[in-house]
């Protein structure tokens, strides 16, 4: 346990070394937040500022800013460290350590997520709150429920990323996997619009996929649209299922490990 805490701590500290990247990222998230929120505000205005698919204008704009703020915390795409490690052969040194490979990366990722929540999440949301009327959490319980839900969302997102990284055992180039993953995630997670805006069939499919548990669920808990325990329960189920799947595939991958570069 001590080891996993130490790993989380070092990875947390590491994030503070990238000052320029943090500022650039904050800038990018804010620009996208302003852009997407403005499009929705224009859209709502054309509808006479009525609710659309049961979402009020303020709720939708808040979701957009929560998504932009959580983007780096849950770290949706652009993480290929395990694939790179498989392909460079560095995975050999990692497998040679007496720790659980999955827990090793998970603890590092949790440390990273805490740092990103502080460095990217809160500042981005603050920028949003300055320019738009963002809603507060639906209550004290919803606020704590949201924090718990974000923690679980990081773990789900981590499992999904880890899974797509494991493709590296079988394919040599991760770009194909990467493109598919980004497209699927953006579509089914509620990243660009509340899921309720999508056609019914697509919504139903999305509700049975893990991606909505990464962004939609924390948003719905924050806004008081979903009972807290229901949201956390769904997320917990996904964590269990995905962890089992990851371990299974990891074992298969290790069996057929072909160490690149001697």
């Amino acid at each position, binding site marked *: 346990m001590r080891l996993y805490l*130490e790993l989380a701590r070092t990875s947390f500290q*590491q994030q503070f070394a990238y000052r320029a990247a943090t500022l650039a990222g904050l800038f990018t998230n804010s620009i996208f937040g302003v852009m997407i929120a403005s499009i929705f505000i224009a859209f709502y205005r054309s509808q006479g500022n009525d609710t659309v698919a049961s979402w009020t204008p303020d709720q939708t704009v808040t979701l957009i800013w929560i998504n932009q703020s959580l983007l780096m915390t849950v770290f949706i795409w652009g993480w290929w460290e395990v694939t790179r490690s498989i392909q460079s052969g560095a995975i050999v*040194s990692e497998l*040679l*350590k*007496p*720790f*659980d490979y999955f827990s090793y990366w998970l603890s590092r990722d949790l440390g990273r997520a805490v740092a990103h929540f502080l460095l990217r999440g809160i500042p981005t949301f603050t920028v949003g709150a300055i320019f738009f009327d963002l809603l507060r959490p639906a209550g004290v319980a919803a606020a704590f429920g949201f924090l718990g839900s974000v923690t679980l969302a990081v773990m789900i997102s981590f499992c999904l990323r880890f899974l797509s990284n494991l493709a590296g055992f079988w394919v040599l180039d991760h770009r194909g996997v990467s493109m598919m993953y980004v497209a699927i995630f953006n579509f089914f997670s509620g990243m660009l619009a509340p899921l309720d805006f999508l056609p019914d069939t697509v919504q139903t499919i999305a509700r049975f996929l893990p991606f909505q548990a990464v962004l939609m669920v924390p948003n719905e808990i924050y806004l008081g649209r979903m009972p807290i325990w229901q949201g956390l329960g769904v997320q917990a189920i996904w964590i269990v299922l995905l962890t089992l799947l990851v371990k299974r595939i990891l074992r298969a991958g290790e069996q057929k490990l072909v160490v690149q570069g001697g």
Partner: protein
Amino acid sequence: MTTQIQARDLSKRFERHTRRAGMVGAMRGLFDRASETVTAVDAVSFDVARGEIVGYIGPNGAGKSTTIKMLTGVLTPSSGEATVAGFTPWSERRKLAQQIGVVFGQRTQLWWDLPLIESLELLQHVYRVPEQRFRENFTMAAELLELGSFLNTPVRQLSLGQRMRGDLAAALLHDPQVLYLDEPTIGLDLVAKTNIREFLAHLNREAGVTILLTTHDLADIERLCKRIIVIDHGHIVHDGDLARLRDKIATERTMTVDFDDPPTLDDQLETRGMRLLDQTGQRVRVAFERSRLTAPDVLTALTEYGSIRDMSIEEPSIESIIQHIYKA
């Protein structure tokens, strides 16, 4: 003596996709991929006793690294068995990991972004080394490997030699029984090489660590290993002590003799079992079979051509011996 590493008929076969040449070939590859089976290691067997240092050598692609990876448990062999420190490597990898240290000269096991000292401290937790033991091992390594000046430098900024020393320190913090070293001196300058060799010799002598070492640098072998295992095309072609290998393969010795005056040599040399290699002024070099002639025999024969001022005998270099094995 207890056996620390035991390999029995270890084999590893890989499937390798092959690319067809040309445009049409590349397009065909989209639909049906051709592959071939490569046997990297073929029925390799050997025992290494506790406290031994064994040199595991062979040309590039001979199967050295693959063998080591199987013995650490990262690769599962296609067939065969092995026991290392009482464990079956590939099925008890994590338990074995606690008992072994591994250094790959070509890559680091330190964390790229962290200062060396933090990497080492993280490893203390990875291996659950008690504080007291960690301090002792750390102090010993820091002193012998002279880590002091770059302990606070991030690993990515270290020179190759510094990084290698850091990696060695990292591999022994948890008192491993077995140390695998895959080309530990590759790309290093002479001072760093010597430094590392002395350190390994010290570790073996003082802590009784069993060492399996692959290298292309035969000076590593001469300094450290009494026994060498030579592998080529996945097969073991020699396993034994270095001196015996020399006797077995290098049957010819060379004598260099300086005469007082340039001698006039004749074909009598040949009939007596010597072979003239070259002559420049007073200096003559002859080769002779160690099984047929002794050095005094040769010297006596040469005195007939003039009075001798000086002489020396050369044993064949390990390089030439190894080359001889590869060719065979």
